């Protein structure tokens, strides 16, 4: 009796209060226009030209401003963006790409086939993927102002995938701007995206403003294409190098989202009810890159010996900390990338066998030459991995000279074959085997393989619709990867982004995007 009276009183007070709250409080589920999204980033872009740079810091700002003909969706499949669609001639040598109607650049100028041709020509010279693709491109012509035709010298089915690759993307800019920039990074930042480049105060902030004339697609494809609504008036990117400060800022509401926090801070994040942790699983994989142009690792048996010397779980625990932030997986691609993912090589990957490693060393006639392993402390995970790799290699019988440099020095030294034997790096997601960076013959490591060339050529001839055939070729490519070991894969490393309850509609992806996202400050 007493309990029910108390319950009635409570219900009388609490229910109206809850109803008032529900009616008065902003409904976070309902999109709101206005305000500014404030993002604490870990690095400042060195350029905003997404075609020039492969850097994440460039991409995550630039893809709000620039767009390509095609782009990847939430499932990492390539779909049209500025393109309405495309057709391929029966012989696979002629691609006709139609532009969507009503597309305009931020300067008000309409997007035409001439802009597309000038932009793609620049991409073909500037970007790694573009250079690879343009080996097959015989010519481009404007069929009409809204249609481009690309003629190939030989079938190259990854053409559309390559055009939608988010690394050094084939962004479309006005013809005059593309020609003025040439091979230098773009200085005039005029794109077609949902946000316009407004201001950059070096060391302080980058400001993007909503593009009121943005012509959005209507499909809910997610990723970098489909429907994009710019709810926020502005996006502010603040370069905050210290991760503790990024976390403190997002905790107090000074920032809405903090990028790339170290896994050590995960417990702090989960302890705060206002914060949401987004563990990014398609993020990066850690690799041990061998110098295949000079020194001991020109011998494949020594590369295989390192593979058998590695205990991947220990390496990943050192690199990424808690188990929630890494995964042992043999794939060149991530399990979420269904079309290209393969488990070929699983019988070799993460199979530490020191006896086998030692026997490979003997077979190769290794005479105790010093192995130079380069790592950097600029990225904690990088040097941490080296700290475990070096004793593992020593246990197998290698004599190792561990050298630690700042990142720009490492970048420079790795271009000189006589300077190193191994360096450690992280590989951000690729979307097609032709875009795997270390398959490039001029990328540091200098991998040359007839078996791989044949497999990639076969991949390039196989129609994108022949799923089973492509799966087999992908297995073949990955088998070559585990036989020739140009790079010893360590494991998949996850990222940690954190946002607070001011940010709504946010969906995780391999890098952050802020269209279809709104704030309630």
């Amino acid at each position, binding site marked *: 009796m007493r309990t029910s009276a108390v319950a009635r009183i409570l219900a009388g007070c609490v229910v109206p209060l809850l109803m008032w709250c529900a009616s008065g409080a902003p409904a976070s589920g309902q999109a709101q226009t206005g305000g500014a999204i404030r993002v604490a980033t870990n690095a*400042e872009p*060195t*350029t905003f030209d997404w075609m*020039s*740079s*492969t*850097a*994440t810091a*460039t991409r995550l700002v630039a893809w709000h401003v620039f767009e390509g003909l095609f782009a990847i969706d939430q499932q990492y499949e390539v779909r049209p963006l500025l393109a309405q669609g495309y057709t391929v001639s029966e012989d696979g040598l002629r691609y006709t790409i139609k532009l969507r109607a009503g597309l305009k650049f931020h300067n008000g100028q309409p997007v035409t086939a001439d802009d597309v041709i000038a932009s793609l020509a620049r991409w073909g*010279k*500037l*970007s*790694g993927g573009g*250079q690879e693709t343009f080996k097959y491109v015989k010519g481009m012509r404007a069929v009409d102002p809204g249609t481009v035709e690309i003629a190939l010298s030989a079938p190259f089915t990854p053409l559309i995938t390559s055009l939608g690759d988010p*690394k*050094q993307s084939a962004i479309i800019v006005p013809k005059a701007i593309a020609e003025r920039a*040439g*091979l*230098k*990074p773009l*200085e005039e930042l005029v794109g077609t995206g949902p946000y316009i480049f407004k201001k950059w*105060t*070096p*060391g*302080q902030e980058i400001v993007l403003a909503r593009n009121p004339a943005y012509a959005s697609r209507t499909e809910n494809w997610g990723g970098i294409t489909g429907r994009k609504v710019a709810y926020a008036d502005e996006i502010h990117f*603040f*370069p*905050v*190098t*210290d991760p*503790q*400060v990024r976390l*403190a*800022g997002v*905790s*107090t509401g*000074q920032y809405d989202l903090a990028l790339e926090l170290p896994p050590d801070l995960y417990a702090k994040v989960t302890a705060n009810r206002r914060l949401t942790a987004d563990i990014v699983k398609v993020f990066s994989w850690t690799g041990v890159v061998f110098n295949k142009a000079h020194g001991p690792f020109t011998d494949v048996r020594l590369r295989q010996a390192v593979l058998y010397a590695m205990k991947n779980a220990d390496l990943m625990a050192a690199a990424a900390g808690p188990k929630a932030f890494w995964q042992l997986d043999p794939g060149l691609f991530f399990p979420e990338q269904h079309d290209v993912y393969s488990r070929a090589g699983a019988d070799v990957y993460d199979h530490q066998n020191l006896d086998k490693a030692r026997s490979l060393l003997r077979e190769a006639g290794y005479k105790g030459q010093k192995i130079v392993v380069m790592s950097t402390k*600029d990225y904690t995970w990088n040097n941490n991995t080296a700290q475990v790799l070096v004793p593992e290699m020593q246990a197998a019988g290698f004599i190792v000279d561990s050298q630690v*440099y*700042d*990142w*720009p*020095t490492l*970048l*420079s*030294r790795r*271009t000189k074959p006589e300077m190193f034997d191994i360096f450690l*790096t*992280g*590989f*951000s997601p690729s979307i097609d085997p032709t875009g795997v*960076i270390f398959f*490039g013959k*001029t*990328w*540091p490591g200098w991998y040359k393989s007839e078996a791989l060339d044949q497999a990639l050529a076969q991949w390039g001839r196989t129609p994108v619709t022949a799923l089973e055939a492509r799966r087999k070729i992908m297995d073949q490519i990955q088998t070559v990867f585990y036989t020739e070991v140009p790079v010893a894969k360590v494991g998949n490393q996850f990222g940690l982004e954190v946002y607070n309850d001011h940010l709504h509609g946010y969906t995780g992806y391999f890098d952050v995007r802020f269209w279809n996202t709104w704030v309630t400050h």
Partner: protein
Amino acid sequence: MARYAAGRVLALVPVLAVVGVTVFLLIHLIPGDPASVILGSDASQAQVAQLRTALGLDRPLYVQFVFWFEHVLRGDLGSSIFLRQPVTRAIWDHLGPTASLTALAEALALAVAVPSGILAAWKRNTRFDQGFMMLVLLGVSIPSFWTGLNLIALFAVAVRLFPVAGYVSPLAGVGPWLASLILPAVALGFTQAGLVARMARDATIDVLAEDYIRTARSKGVREPRVLARHAFRNALIPTMTVVGTSLANLLSGAVVVETVFVLPGIGNLIVQSISRRDYPVIEGVVLFVALVYVVVNLGVDLLYAALDPRITY
């Protein structure tokens, strides 16, 4: 005095020339180049070579040096590879936050350190003096980034009095500007206060043992007056030396504090430029900092004469 000052200013020229040449050679001799940084880690060797040519970095070092030196002689420090602006403009844009930060840090340090140093000398060997010496030791021992992170945790996260990081221009309001600088200034000034306070205490102890202090006391001059009128001014000269030299050191402390608190000052500019190998900015900023060092030291030397009539030039 004018002749002395003119001589010191003239001596600046060879100093800056040596600094300029050394920095140019050192920065170009260490590995790493802007093209690799711009293109990112996935760029191929061919792409890096292509951009190096486009940026003119493939020219022989002596050609680059002659080109740079000629322009420096004309007052042109070149243009930043990344910031898309002249180096002089970049320095000017980043000067405001650093000047504000160092001025505030120095003011806070002096306001706390000088009176407490004199007081500790006066209360020599008491509990106050012992406590003071412990604080001073903490001040000079604790790195400013650690102080900064703790100040953020305490005054920006636990008690939300100040922003976590970032800089607000004084044009946007004096209140927000000060709020954005208080925590970094305290972090930076803590070390400075330790140095100054110790010197103020030691100098005051020495002065308090002088005959003229004993004479003043024997004439019945009250203790506050002895301290303020007789001891303070004489203790100020060695203290000023520390203030002068450490004011220039504040600039190096600002490098760390500006990075922690995301202040777009000269320190942040140099750190970013080194990690990007933005050669023209590194060369320009180092020349500028060398100039500040020399000018501050000259200013301190001239100030001695103003403070102590016994010193003449």
